[in-house]
């Protein structure tokens, strides 16, 4: 199974994917770094911008498609994945990216994630996880840690955060990685590898919110604590080992590929193409589809049936 995202031989530079729109993010926002890494990963892959569909929901990070030259769809809150899947199923030749924040992906859109995983379309889903609702000015998010004080938790967060790495692994995603703009080459590498992986790829990015985040979440702090999985002897083909490491989400910052299924399972779109090919022969011409409802003498079809 080759990927539809292979290099087409065009020489593309990161700047080719940069649009004229000036990003509306706070100075120092982690999302600037993510955007740069996306440009670099796309340049390395070399698909032309018009062959890329980049879908997002709503939130600071969901503005990202507009800052690229790809076909972008900045949709509604939480619905990037359903729309991305419709695009991919309708035209499997496209390189499809989905992106958004932790609120978009794990809260309002959280119900879509397990199903996107099990359908396994060749889509790369990048979540800029900053543990806060930034666009709406600093409310709790599903990944905010217990006890955190925000404008909607002035006495501290009563809830425990979700662990997205853990549950995406449990859903059966064939590619799960984490990165941070504190390590740009590392983040570029996991985004590129996610895109190249022929199946659903999940990349969680610890992208700090400079306005509402706490000191220990900033780039400087991240640089001191991040631990590349590649240096920890982790076997990315081992899902159980990946889940062990994923349990450290929210405590330790591991970066790189947690899990990569060495035998990529069939994608939804490949199965769709198979069905289209195998069923085509049985089709009535479109203009004669109503013949399906035509009442015929039952005997016509029954000859040699129950009579013999």
């Amino acid at each position, binding site marked *: 199974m080759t990927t539809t995202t292979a290099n087409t031989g065009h020489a593309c530079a990161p700047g080719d994917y940069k649009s004229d*729109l000036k990003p509306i993010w706070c100075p120092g926002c982690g999302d600037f770094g993510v955007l740069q890494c996306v440009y670099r990963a796309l340049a390395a892959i070399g698909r032309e911008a018009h062959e890329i569909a980049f879908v997002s929901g709503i939130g600071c990070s969901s*503005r990202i498609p507009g800052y690229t030259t790809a076909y*972008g769809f900045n949709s509604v809150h939480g619905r990037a994945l359903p729309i991305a899947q*419709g695009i991919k199923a*309708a035209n499997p030749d496209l390189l499809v990216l989905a992106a958004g924040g932790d609120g978009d992906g794990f809260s309002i859109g959280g119900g879509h994630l397990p199903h996107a995983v099990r359908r396994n379309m060749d889509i790369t889903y990048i979540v800029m996880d900053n543990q806060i609702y930034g666009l709406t000015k600093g409310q709790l998010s599903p990944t905010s840690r217990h006890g955190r004080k925000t404008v909607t938790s002035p006495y501290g967060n009563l809830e425990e955060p979700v662990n997205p790495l853990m549950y995406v692994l449990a859903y059966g995603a064939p590619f799960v990685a984490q990165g941070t703009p504190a390590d740009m080459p590392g983040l570029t590498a996991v985004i590129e590898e996610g895109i190249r992986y022929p199946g659903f790829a999940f990349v969680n990015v610890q992208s700090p919110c400079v306005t509402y985040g706490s000191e220990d979440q900033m780039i400087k702090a991240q640089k001191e604590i991040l631990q590349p999985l590649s240096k920890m002897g982790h076997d990315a083909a081992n899902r159980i080992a990946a889940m062990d490491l994923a349990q450290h989400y929210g405590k330790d910052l591991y970066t790189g590929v947690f899990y990569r299924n060495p035998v990529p399972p069939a994608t939804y779109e490949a199965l769709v193409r198979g069905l*289209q090919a195998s069923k085509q022969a049985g089709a009535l011409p479109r203009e004669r589809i*109503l013949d399906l409802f035509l*009442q015929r003498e039952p005997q016509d079809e029954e000859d040699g049936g129950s009579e013999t």
Partner: protein
Amino acid sequence: MSKDLVIGMAGSGGDGIISAGESLIAAVALEGYHAIMTKSFGSQIRGGESSCRVRISTRPVLNPGGTLDAAVALNWDDFLKFGAELPVGGNTVVIYEAKSGVAPDKLPLVGVAPAEAIAVPIAELAKQTAGTDRAKNTVVLGLLAGWFGINGDAIVAGIRKRLAKKGVKVGDAAERSFKAGMTWAAEHPLAHELRLDPPEGQRGPKLLTDGNDMCAAAAIFAGCQFFGGYPITPSSEIMQFMSREIWKYGGALLQAEDEIAGVGAALGASFAGKKAMTATSGPGMSLKTEIIGLATIAELPLVIVNVQRGGPSTGMPTKSEQADLFQAAFSAHGDVVRPVLAPTTVADTFRITVDAFNIAERYQTPVIVLSDQEIAQRKETVDPIDTSKFRLEERRRPTAAEVEDYKRFRNTDSGISPVSHPGMPGGNYLGSGIEHNEHGDPTASGVMHARMNDKRFRKLEPLRHERNLFLVEGDPGAQLGLVSWGSSAGVCREVLVHAQAEGLRVKLLVPYLLYPVVEETYREFFASVRAGLVVEQSHQGQLYRILRMMIDVPACVQPFCRSGANPFRPREIVARLRELTLAMQRHGSNTRQPQE
């Protein structure tokens, strides 16, 4: 002799009442009769009561009819649960299971003395001929064929085909049961003759299907390449049909994790350049509303079918109602106008679905098709449709020159802009739910927002003058006027025939396009009207209310409406027309009724 027969049957879940109805309608369709079959169930999937109504006519039929001509009760408990769905009157012949022990003059029908009541040993005949009382439904078919003069060979062939997998012996037994019923009928002639006249008009083969399958087939014909949806009664058959057929035409389908994802995926497919649809019912429509709004502002074609059922909330999932018109027209937030279409029969579901795709493509807009459970799940004979008469439209793509300085949302005179899709070189743009300028770039400018709202309204302006999505029947100068939509319109078309037979001058306006409101059409129709009714199956009369809001409706036009479940019967509307005529005569025909 009879030109029109309405048969109602009820029994327990395992009695095979529905398959008896299916056999009957298939056989009469082959004979060239026109027919409609509706089914009704209790809430259980198995073991509960079930019933069906079959209306057979020598002429085209547009609704399931009123009071039964023949009622079949395999047991009285089940029959009585259907109440007004199986109305027995003074002209009804009641056929029932003798084992019930009920005397013909002691039927458990309150306040009704049927024309004739016949106790038939149905279970006994089944046991004698097939060795099991599971053949009761086949005995009933034999009785009906015998009494009504329906060709038994066609029914037997149909039953044999259905039972083919169970082996020849089962087929032989069924034929014996059927013949036993016919023989019993021959030996016990009805006092009230119910034999059917031969069919009139076009004899050839007919289509036999329900509104849901017709809708799905029309979508395939229109070029639909993607279906995204979530199962919900009473629309699921649309997705089921698609899941069998769409692959054959190079399309794809996604059964989504919820209603939102279903419509989201369909919108994604449309963004990717494909004709796409979703189908649902009221609760699903509520969930899809946000994405439909996104389709409006992103200016993407999308067809959304809402097979209406009783609401609000879970309401009455298996019963018909026409109470989602407000939702269809007004559920969006922001300033939005989006087309709403409604079929009135299984037959015109084809045309309306094709129209919906054409309008969606032409205007780059979501289009809502308001079907209803009555049409969607009833089987109806349909004369063959000449598909070569339909023109299929495609969205306007950018020309090579337009791609040079591409403006996805160019503010053209018509308001319709060229639309590209991923994969098209040079057409790259940002689709969005956020307000945007002509290039598609996000904006917070109030001036731009007003301009874009204006553009989105302007492009749909031609629909406000669309004259082809209406049906006008009857006497054009009549002072009595009926307006009706959806399945209720099928009842009103028959009302016209009965009313004219009584000498009442009446006319009927059926809008297939419910929204936006085409003012001229209503104004012209109301011009001669001195007493009018807007007939629809909802508590508030939603079309009536929308007309009152949008146009100058004469005070003499009043709602005639009630909540769902039981379709209107032609006779009740004729009776109301008679009253209105008398009132007009009393007041002088030029006096309009005072404001309500």
